[in-house]
């Protein structure tokens, strides 16, 4: 007879006063870490860059998941930087998969454990089955496989660590690279002054709309408790879960290495990466409303990849951000509306700011 498949239910962390949901700017930085589990299944000793956003995300996700986890990692920077033959940062079982196989390999792991437990071939609880795929893997070459896995509703967590480029191969554009983001496949020049011309693909919305039976959420490394709680909610959800996590790439974006977590908040405060949770009962999005709303320039000015932007490009970016704020149900302050006009930025360029960090771009 079939054996019962017993699944984990992980308790959530207390977010009160620890997330970014405090209303004063200084308060953003207070007490954002609750008492964390001692387990650290993503151990030290890997070769990620200083300030690596994906490494921070990997650590929080695996801390939240714990030791009874099985992990897959499609090809990407977090394959190459993490695993070196005869050495591993993982204290949980981990397997490399081809870049297009994140969704499908993980489906197989989930199906394997379902069948083995049911048929009495594995004595434990159903483990946390997790894949962390880069944005190239998740939104480009492996999109179909992840969509297939979500559609089939395997009990697994599919995480996209989004550093907005193919970082492993030397910073090429991916579908989530922002408009005007400079990459080695979207350089700026006289003929194409903005670098990347296309707006990014909305991966998480595509996953939520297309697979409304799944737990789908977005988060950033700027909100560790939110990240860990969404990880646990995704794992607790019986069925497929998709978590889209914004993870800055110091090498690809050219910023000061200490600013990774700060970028994870500014991107939300600038309206460029809405943080939300999909409510699958009511088929609505629960948006996080950042306590601070900033002009996009507060975000762009920190990164070399935007250093070539002309006033009209900044204005285009501000229009997209303002639209995001409206989608999130937030009012758009007059200053941000003014930023939709290129003249606004011409004036600023002359009078107010000089984007000191941007000088080195392309040099």
């Amino acid at each position, binding site marked *: *007879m*079939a*054996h019962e498949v017993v699944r984990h239910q*992980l*308790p959530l962390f207390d977010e009160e006063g620890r997330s970014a949901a405090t209303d004063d700017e200084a308060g953003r930085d207070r007490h954002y870490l609750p008492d964390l*589990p001692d*387990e650290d299944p993503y151990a030290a000793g890997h070769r990620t860059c200083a300030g690596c956003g994906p490494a921070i995300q990997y650590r929080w996700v695996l801390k*939240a*998941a*714990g*030791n*009874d*986890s*099985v992990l*897959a990692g499609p090809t990407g920077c977090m*394959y*190459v930087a993490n*695993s*070196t*033959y*005869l*050495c*591993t940062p*993982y*204290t949980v*079982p*981990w*397997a*490399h*998969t*081809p870049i*297009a*196989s994140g*969704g*499908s*390999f*993980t*489906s*197989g*792991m989930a*199906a*394997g*454990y*379902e*069948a*083995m437990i*049911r*048929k*009495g*071939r*594995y*004595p*434990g609880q159903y*483990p*946390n089955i997790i894949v962390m795929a880069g944005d190239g893997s998740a939104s480009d070459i492996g999109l*179909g*496989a992840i*969509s*297939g896995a979500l559609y*089939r509703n395997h009990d697994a967590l599919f995480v996209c660590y989004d550093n907005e480029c193919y970082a492993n191969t030397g910073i090429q554009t991916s579908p989530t690279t922002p408009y005007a983001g400079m990459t080695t496949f979207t350089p700026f020049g006289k003929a194409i002054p903005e670098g990347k011309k296309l707006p990014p693909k909305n991966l998480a919305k595509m996953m939520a709309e297309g697979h409304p039976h799944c737990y789908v959420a977005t988060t950033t490394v700027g909100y560790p408790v939110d990240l860990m709680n969404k990880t646990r909610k995704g794992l607790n959800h019986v069925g497929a879960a998709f978590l889209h996590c914004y993870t800055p790439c110091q090498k690809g974006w050219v910023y000061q290495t200490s600013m990774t977590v700060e970028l994870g908040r500014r991107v939300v405060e600038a309206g460029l990466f809405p943080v939300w949770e999909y409510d699958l009962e009511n088929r609505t999005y629960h948006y996080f409303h950042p306590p601070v709303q900033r002009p996009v320039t507060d975000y762009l000015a920190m990164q070399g990849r935007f250093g070539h932007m002309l006033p009209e490009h900044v204005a285009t970016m501000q229009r997209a951000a303002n639209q995001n704020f409206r989608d999130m149900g937030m009012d758009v302050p007059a200053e941000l509306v003014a930023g939709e006009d290129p003249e606004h930025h011409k004036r600023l360029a002359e009078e107010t700011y000089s984007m000191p960090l941007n000088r080195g771009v392309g040099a």
Partner: protein
Amino acid sequence: MTTVHVEGGLTGPNGAGQLARLARGSRTPDGEQFLAGLAGQKLRLNGCAAAAYAALYANVDVIAAYPIRPYTAIMMNLSQFIADGILDAEYLHADGEHSQLSAAFGAGSCGARAFTGSSGVGVTYAYEMYSIISGARIPIQMSIADRTLDPPGDFGSEHTDALCTRDMGWLLGWAATPQEVFDKSLIAYAIGEDPRVLLPQMVVQDGYFVSHIAGEVDMPSAVAVDDYLPPYQLPFALDPRRPVSHGPQIHPEQGPPLQLERARAMEDAIPVIREKTDAFGTAFGRHYTHFVEEYILADAEIALVISGGHAVTCRAAVRQLRERGIKIGMARLLWVRPFPSDDLRQALRGVKAVGVVETNLGLGGASYGGILSLDVTTALYHASPKRPLVTAFMAGLGGETVPVAEFDWMAGKLGQALQRGSVEKATHWVGFEK
């Protein structure tokens, strides 16, 4: 926060072998009853159904399916077994062949017995996965019913699809009848899952000629199959009780020893193939030669080397030619990987001219014809004391039949070569030449 359930016995020096995972997978009550009713019967099954029955007997845990003709019928049979409650397995509707192979790979990596399959361009769509799965030493099984590669679209059988993967480290062999499909599927799992081997297997049958023509298939008892094919036990499964990392990045200088290991895995499979083939004969009463079927080769001067279902017609042609006094025989390759060089030389030891029947396309190769003759020629180059003449015959392409008359024509060409003391050309296109 989550705790890992650890079985006793993990601490000893052989702790890894003590995992409770060794348990045999349970069958459903309906499955037990169904298989008990089948034991000892002869069913009329086509090759696809035979492959599905073998997977049912093997009590596979995960099946990854995607439709393409003609192998699809294997998956249709299996989905019905599951719908009827006869087989307890996760049936995964993959989004393409690459995902099929990836999912089977993931399941096999966790310790589940995984089954998948494809045909034609489906086989080539998944190409990235073949080297990865064999290199990871995950012994999943892929059941292939041959189909010609595009262009243009053609449902007919041609061996090119599976042969494209021949150097990717999988065990690869053709079955010529539904009974052989059934038997070979079980034998292949037994070989591949053996801890001395741990290699994925392709069990191939000709599309339509075997996959869709019914033949009688003996149904064994489930107990006999369970005894022959022990529970799948991957020594390094992705298991939270004993964490391992699979497939980390290497430095170039670490490559040669790993590649050597993969090459040796193929060679090391050879004695296990012999052992499991013999054990199968003992258990089920059907005795196969290990690698090469020798058909009237003892006194043969000329011989055809062939693989797959066309061997059935070839045997009839050989018999008729023998009645006319022509000393011809047939050698059929039961496995193409690992390639049975020793067994083939032994089978053809007295033969003076050999023709390789190519039901495949190897464009621009050394023979400017097919794929199989290159391996056959290399194997025979080392024959002693005198190597035979070798030529290739392109026949049955696009799924065309290879009638007796074409085998007669091939025999004629081999006879002429024998008289002349040399072959006319490396490759003959049957039906396009006089």
